[in-house]
Structures are given as structure tokens and as C-alpha cells.
């Protein structure tokens, strides 16, 4: 029997019909964006990772490395985005060595889309891929089922509608670097404040011909506030009538072992 075996998928669906659901994978909830400007690409992402209603990671990294000149933001299932981008990043290095050429953004896009299509949407990775190569600056969006779009500005994730509202209002062609960074920040913040699946900080990554700059935690609008009062009880507030101190370390013996080989030798 050739091809893929989807019988587990059938089983899962029939169990779900009997109200036995799969556990929630950690999802990045997420707002991720990408924006083309005069000198290159700016990518942006929030930093909240959720497991159902709980925030699993308050400061995770959603902008993944593909190659020196290419980065990929990931929304959807955190494990899927992490492993997909890592696999393609590895394959891109091998590809570059094999062809003797600098990696191209369309190559990464094609590798990702073909893998995702092959898995028929079971890999929950929604990606914003951006980079610069010898053919210019390119920005792509890749959906879990394997469809791609090439656009000058893109948003993905649960906060994508909030972020897209910002882009549609303020994006212009040929913006300056700082204007693009500010716009990306505004877009991510729209997701952070208005989408429950997104939050914490703004990560920004600027990809230019001269190089890539990763601005981790470019903006931190959600730092824990200093409490107005000290809520700890000072020492002496609780009265006690008796004090007893017990030592639990009865005997300690230090034994020197002869060399590294001696430790691991199992035949001796």
C-alpha cells in the first residue's frame, strides 16, 4: 500500500464525535507580520505562546532563522512552526552547498509549501517568510495546507485581522527603514492589545542587503509593574513559643575516583 495512512485521523475524528478530544497543542495564538520597504523587509511578531487558555510562554521567539538573509515568522502550532523552519533551514544550507549559490527566498518558500501540502494541513504551520537575495526583496505568506501568496505586506495568526487593519490604513510603498519598523510595531501592538491569543512583547527583524538585524524585544509594553506597597510581613510579626533546630546531614564522605576512564569502565 503506497501513499499516506490516514486511519489514525479517522479514529481521532470518530473519538471526537464521542466527545473524547485531543489535548490542546501549545499554540502560538499570535500576531505575526511582514512588510516591504524601500531597502528590504521588516518582520514582526508578538511573544506569547498559549496552551488553551493558559499562557505557556510569556516571551517566546517566533521569528525563526532560515539563512543569513532569510527569516520566517511562525503562527499556529508552536512545535510545527519550530520544526518546519528548522528542517527547511537545514535543507537550505545543504542546497546552497550543492548548488554553489546563495540561498533564494523562493527556494525556501517552495520547500515549505511542498512539505505542508504533502501533509495535507496536518502540520499546523502558518508562516510569514521574508528575505533578500540576488533577485531582490521578497515577502511570502504560507498557509498550513500549502498555499502561498506573494504580497508587499502580510499578517498571520489570530491577531492578523487587527494587524492588517493597521497595515491597510498606513502602509505605503517605498517607506523608510524607521517608518517601516514603526508601522510593524503598531501592527503587532494592535494584535497584542486586541487579540487574547497575542501579548507580551514586540520582536522585530530588519533584513537589508547589507545584513540582517534581529531586534529581540524591540518594545516591551507589558513589563510587570512595581507594586505600590510591600506586602511581605516583616520578621518578628509572627510570635513563637518554642524553637528547635534539627540537622539532617548525618554523615558526608567525599571519595575521589581515578580518572575519566575509570568512572565509565563497565568491564573492570
Amino acid at each position, binding site marked *: 500500500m503506497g501513499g499516506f495512512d490516514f486511519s489514525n485521523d479517522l479514529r481521532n475524528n470518530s473519538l471526537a464525535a464521542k466527545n473524547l478530544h485531543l489535548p490542546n497543542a501549545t499554540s502560538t495564538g499570535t500576531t505575526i507580520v511582514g512588510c516591504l520597504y524601500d531597502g528590504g523587509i521588516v518582520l514582526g511578531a508578538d511573544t506569547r505562546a498559549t496552551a488553551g487558555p493558559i499562557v505557556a510562554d510569556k516571551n517566546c521567539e517566533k521569528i525563526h532563522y532560515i539563512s543569513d538573509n532569510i527569516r520566517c515568522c511562525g503562527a499556529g502550532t508552536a512545535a510545527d512552526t519550530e520544526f518546519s523552519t528548522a528542517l527547511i533551514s537545514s535543507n537550505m544550507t545543504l542546497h546552497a552547498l550543492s548548488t554553489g549559490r546563495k540561498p533564494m527566498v523562493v527556494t525556501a518558500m517552495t520547500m515549505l509549501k511542498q512539505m505542508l501540502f504533502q501533509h495535507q494541513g496536518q502540520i499546523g504551520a502558518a508562516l510569514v517568510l521574508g528575505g533578500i537575495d540576488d533577485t531582490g526583496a521578497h515577502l511570502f505568506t504560507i498557509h498550513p*495546507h500549502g498555499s502561498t501568496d506573494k504580497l508587499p505586506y502580510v499578517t498571520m495568526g489570530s491577531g492578523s485581522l487587527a494587524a492588517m487593519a493597521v497595515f491597510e490604513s498606513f502602509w505605503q510603498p517605498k517607506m523608510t527603514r524607521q517608518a517601516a519598523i514603526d508601522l510593524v510595531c503598531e501592527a503587532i501592538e494592535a494584535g497584542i492589545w486586541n487579540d487574547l491569543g497575542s501579548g507580551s512583547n514586540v520582536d522585530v527583524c530588519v533584513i537589508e542587503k547589507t545584513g540582517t538585524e534581529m531586534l529581540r524585544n524591540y518594545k516591551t509594553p507589558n513589563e510587570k509593574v512595581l507594586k505600590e506597597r510591600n506586602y511581605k510581613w516583616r520578621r518578628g510579626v509572627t510570635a513563637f513559643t518554642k524553637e528547635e533546630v534539627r540537622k539532617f546531614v548525618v554523615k558526608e564522605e567525599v571519595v575521589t575516583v581515578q580518572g575519566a576512564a575509570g568512572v565509565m569502565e563497565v568491564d573492570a
Partner: protein
Amino acid sequence: MPGQMTSLTPDVSHLKSGEVNLGTSIMACVFPGGVVIGADSRTTTGAYIANRVTDKLTYLHERVYCCRSGSAADTQAIADVAHAQLQLYAMQHSERPSVHIAATMLEGLCYSNKDRLSAGLIVAGWDPLEGGSVYNIPLGGGLFKGPWAIGGSGSTYIYGYCDATYREDWSKEETVDFVRNGEIGGEMGMGWMTSYLLPSLLALALAMSRDGSSGGTIRMAIITEDGVERIFVPGDQLPKFWEKA
């Protein structure tokens, strides 16, 4: 599979949840000397428009294009495979593939994977053997050659309009002259519209005005022996009908 009723209508019609949909209005029409193809530019995920400026007119070979409707992922994957296979064909035969070859290639892909795909394609182009030709490949993977074809969710609204309006005797001269002079792309005056382009444009605009899954802008292409000419009609310049707004 034994036990299942054979039916002329395949069960493949629905996208999986979360899949990106090319709702769509697509069409193609033959004229003496080539074909005109056109599509709207809307891609949706549920009620959200994922891409409002999509290009659904996909290059397969130098004089062969296909219009895509249905699942974005499925149609992109199919077009990529066909593109590669046609490049191979050209290399092996030292000649461009004819439109018929491209159409049967796509039909093969769509039919043999009919239970896993959601793709409605229109293959159109020019070759020296037949001139312009149009092939419709709807959901089940059947191949239907004709002088014109429409497809996508928006096409249902314009079957009547197309049946009533289509004429075999639209003039070749006007079409080719206007294309060659490159007036298209300049001012969008009504002058250049007296050709095969106008009926196609109106058909698409009608479909887009009634179908929620179609909209945005209109992209068209004219494929002749001399090449492929692209036309873009922005959303604010779409033909309007009885509504004043």
C-alpha cells in the same frame, strides 16, 4: 469501492476547514488569433479575505495559461507539477507543448486524484496547430473543449449572460489592432473595449458584483502567437451596471 453507488457527481466539493479558498470567477474565450482569459483577485479563508490582489492566471508554458478556482493549495500544487512536466516536455520534444497537451496533462492530475483535490481549472492558450483554444476542467477531472468557458463560484451567476451574449463573429481585426497598439493599460477609455475583451470584462464584473467569494480587481491576459499581454483593472474602475453607486 464496492458497495458504493456510482454517481456522475463526485463527492469532492468541499474544502477542509481552514483551507484557503479561491472562491472565484474565472473565464476564458477564444477569438481568431488567440484567447482572452480573465479572473477576479479574491482569496478567502472563511469570511476573511487572505489576499485581495491574487493572480489566478497562472503561467504553465509560454503560450499556455490556466485559471485556478477551488482550493488555493491544491491548484497551486497542481499548476507547479504541470509547469515542471511541461518544461520537461519542451526539452524532450524541442518544441512548445500545445494547449491540448497541457490540458490533458492537467486532466490526468485532476482525475487520478479526484478524491483528494478541490480544483476547478480552465486551461487556455495559443498553439500553431489549433490557434486559440480553451479547455474547462471542472471538479471531477473531466475535460471539456469549447469556444468559451467559465468557472468558479461566481460563474453560476453569469451562465445566462454568457449564453445570451456570446457570438462567434466578433471581429479579429479590432482585437488585434487594439492589443498591438498597446492602448490597453493607458487610458481606460471605451475605445479599446470593442473587442473580445469587453464581453469578458463585463461577464467577470457581473459575476463579481453578485458573488461574495469573488471581488477585488480584474486580471486579464491576451494570449496570441506574438506573446502574452496582461491587463489589470483596479477595483474602482470596474464596470458598473444598473446601480448608481
